[in-house]
């Protein structure tokens, strides 16, 4: 025998921790077919039973009403796939709200076991709880557990295996309520029709659940019968309100007693006390910015004391990885030379494959450290506070408070930033956030600004130009928000109803698992899309159209392609093939733009050597690529706003999970880059003409 068990519960009830504790490292993470909600399935690793038990982690939901994608998936899974049992995880410190979902789950004809989580927190605060009260009130087995301490898990699985073999008939707390009579009438008729879960279906039909009604395919007489009951009940009351109210009242009067001391309305918990400072009317904002700055600093920070450079974890790791990539590259060349490999094969392997993939891997440490810190903020519960504090400001241009964090991360690297937009539930806000995040000037674009300003601007102007570029990105993000909110998303304004979960210490194992998943995903991307494009770019810049290797890149296919593209860039002030070539190569990784100028100047990578940098600067100012400092600035603006590097583009397509939206986002970025550069060039020239 093999069993399938579904794991259902509220968000923040410790579901992920319990799932990880039960399944260990053998879970598959994917997506539910056709939707962006994550699907996790794993085999139970404990030794309670000889049977194979697979556990499916359903998305966190507050009820089984058919509105959000999460609710639809969770409900359809239970109703259509009919798992052998459902583990309903319940947060013992937030019992009343959590049990609302429970009252719905026990109505379905599938055995339910309640995993009462965070009992260790109650014990710590000397709050007594009585499992028997809950079991009596709800009629199902209740097992106290602590998911992150891995306590009670064996008892839980014993109880689960015990119920899987038993047939379960759903029962409802509403059957004996003021509308019990009507409910029982509907249950009877549904039972006659041999409908699955007559109790659950009866109540949902009474509430006017259209998708379920369609799914049941009832005959017209039955439909009419149910409609009559519903109409007579809803004459002077709102049935949905009555049902919700009855559920909550039942929980309050029968289940609340299970915990000897529930939090009173005005009472301050430890979390509330922490919030008194963290979301304070005056201090809330400065503290928020301080936390964001600290996060940023831990990833990208580096400073000097005397002549010692102190590097923060992100930079330290990245430096190590860079060194490793550099060394391996060196050995690779030596090895290939030693075995007398041909020049073209050394070029392909070292510059093409290894160089391209290595350049992207150099970013992995930043991404991982950033992701770890964000996961910690998420796990502790601070993310909800950040959204609470920033929501008003972001609301103004069609984003949500939850958009702030991804956008801030965008200044570091768009890849984790775009992934960070996952915390946004609203599809439109998420797409908008993903669309504008790459406008934040990322770390890899900085070398472009430094190089270009050093060549074309002097002293204070250079600093101002770099500052202007950063501001331009932020302004374009705001303008984009305003445009899309006014013309594209106008019909969809989603409510902002967000739980403020209690602050909790993050679970280290869950964090490590998140990191490992990210690393795997990253390696997979580097091994596929980036590998392929690196080879293609190398090929284009090393060969001509008769597939002969060229000495001078001027004769390469890339020069020819760049030459065609150059016409497009002419109105922006940099209509030469080298600039077009640099922009194209920038799609692989933005720092490649500067290296490309180095290659084109025929001196090597200017990022590696100060002296070379001077030569490249002299070359670029005299080669006539940029006719004026203004055209150089337009080139910078284009690189800032144009679609990001391949790694980020890949992430965007992975996160929006829609070809149409990936295309819209990339085309929009391309259009904005072109229009803004064109405007800057046109208006700039006009101003210069006048003065």
């Amino acid at each position, binding site marked *: 025998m093999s069993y399938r068990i579904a794991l259902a519960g509220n968000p923040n009830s410790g579901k992920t921790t319990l799932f990880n504790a039960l399944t260990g490292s053998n879970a598959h993470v994917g997506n539910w077919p056709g939707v962006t909600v994550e699907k996790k399935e794993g085999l139970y690793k404990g030794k309670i039973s000889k049977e194979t038990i697979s556990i499916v982690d359903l998305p966190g939901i*507050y*009820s089984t*009403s058919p*509105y959000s994608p999460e609710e639809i998936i969770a409900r359809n899974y239970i109703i259509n796939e009919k798992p052998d049992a459902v583990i309903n995880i319940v947060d013992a410190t*937030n*019992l*009343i*709200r959590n049990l*609302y*979902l429970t009252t719905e789950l026990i109505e379905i004809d599938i055995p339910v076991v309640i995993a009462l989580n965070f009992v260790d927190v109650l014990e710590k605060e000397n709050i007594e709880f009585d499992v028997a009260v809950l079991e009596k009130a709800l009629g199902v087995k209740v097992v106290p557990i602590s998911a992150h301490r891995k306590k009670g898990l064996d008892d839980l699985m014993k109880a689960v295996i015990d119920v899987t073999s038993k047939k379960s008939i759903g029962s409802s707390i509403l059957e004996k309520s003021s509308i019990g009579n009507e409910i029982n009438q509907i249950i009877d008729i549904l039972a006659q029709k041999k409908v699955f879960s007559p109790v659950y279906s009866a109540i949902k039909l009474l509430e006017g659940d259209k998708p379920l009604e369609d799914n049941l395919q009832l005959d017209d007489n039955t439909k009419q019968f149910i409609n009559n009951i519903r109409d007579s009940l809803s004459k002077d009351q709102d049935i*949905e*309100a009555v049902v*919700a*109210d009855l559920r*909550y009242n039942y929980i*309050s009067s029968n289940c609340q007693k299970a915990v000897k001391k*529930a*939090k009173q*309305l*005005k009472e301050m918990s430890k*979390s*509330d006390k922490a*919030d008194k400072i963290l*979301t*304070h*009317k*005056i201090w*809330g*904002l400065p503290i928020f910015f301080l936390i964001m700055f600290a996060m940023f600093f831990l990833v990208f920070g580096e400073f000097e004391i005397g002549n010692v450079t102190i590097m923060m974890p992100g930079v330290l790791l990245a430096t190590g990885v860079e060194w490793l990539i550099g060394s391996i590259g060196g050995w690779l060349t030596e090895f290939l030379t030693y075995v007398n490999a041909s020049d073209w094969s050394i070029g392909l392997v070292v510059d093409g494959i290894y160089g391209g993939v290595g350049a992207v891997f150099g970013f992995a440490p930043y991404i991982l450290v950033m992701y770890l810190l964000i996961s910690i903020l998420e796990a502790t519960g601070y993310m*909800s506070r950040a*959204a*609470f*504090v*920033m*929501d*008003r*400001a972001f*609301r103004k241009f069609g984003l949500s*408070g939850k958009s702030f964090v991804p956008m801030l991360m965008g200044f570091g690297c768009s890849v984790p930033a775009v992934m960070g937009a996952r915390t946004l539930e609203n599809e439109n806000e998420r797409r908008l956030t993903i669309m504008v995040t790459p406008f934040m000037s990322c770390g890899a674009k900085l070398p472009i600004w430094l190089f270009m300003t050093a060549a074309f601007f002097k002293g204070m102007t250079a600093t101002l130009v770099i500052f202007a570029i950063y501001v331009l990105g932020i302004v374009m993000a705001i303008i984009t928000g305003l445009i899309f909110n006014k013309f594209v998303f106008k019909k969809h304004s989603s*409510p*902002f*109803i*967000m*739980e*403020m979960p209690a602050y909790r210490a993050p679970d280290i194992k869950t964090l490590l698992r998140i990191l490992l998943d990210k690393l795997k995903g990253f390696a997979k991307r580097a091994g596929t899309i980036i590998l392929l494009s690196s080879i293609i770019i190398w090929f284009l810049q090393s060969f001509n159209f008769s597939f002969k290797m060229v000495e001078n890149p001027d004769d390469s296919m890339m020069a020819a392609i760049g030459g065609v593209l150059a016409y497009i860039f002419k109105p922006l002030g940099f209509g030469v093939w080298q600039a077009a070539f640099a922009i194209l190569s920038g799609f692989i990784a933005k720092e490649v733009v500067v290296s490309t100028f180095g290659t084109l100047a025929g001196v090597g990578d200017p990022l590696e050597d100060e002296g070379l940098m001077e030569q490249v600067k002299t070359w670029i100012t005299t080669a006539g690529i940029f006719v004026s400092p203004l055209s150089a600035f337009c080139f910078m603006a284009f690189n800032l706003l144009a679609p990001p590097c391949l790694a980020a583009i890949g992430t965007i397509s992975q996160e929006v999970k829609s070809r149409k939206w990936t295309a819209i986002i990339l085309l929009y970025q391309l259009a904005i880059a072109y229009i803004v550069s064109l405007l800057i060039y046109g208006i700039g020239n006009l101003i210069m003409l006048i003065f």
Partner: protein
Amino acid sequence: MTLKDLKVGQCCTVEKVAAQGILKRRFFEMGITPGTEIYLRKVAPLGDPIQISLRGYELSIRKAEAENIIIKNIED
């Protein structure tokens, strides 16, 4: 009066939820049903959203949503 007009530190009882569709549903499943007691714990630094305490937990909603909750029995 609606929940939007409640002052920080005040308590009230929900009289009616005047929302429709998904918003009404959300309120109900989060425990905002007629008769529920709500305490306004704080307002965000920029004036919106608000943080309320009900049924033993904390919830944040925007004022635009709070306007749909009709309240009575306001006390300090």
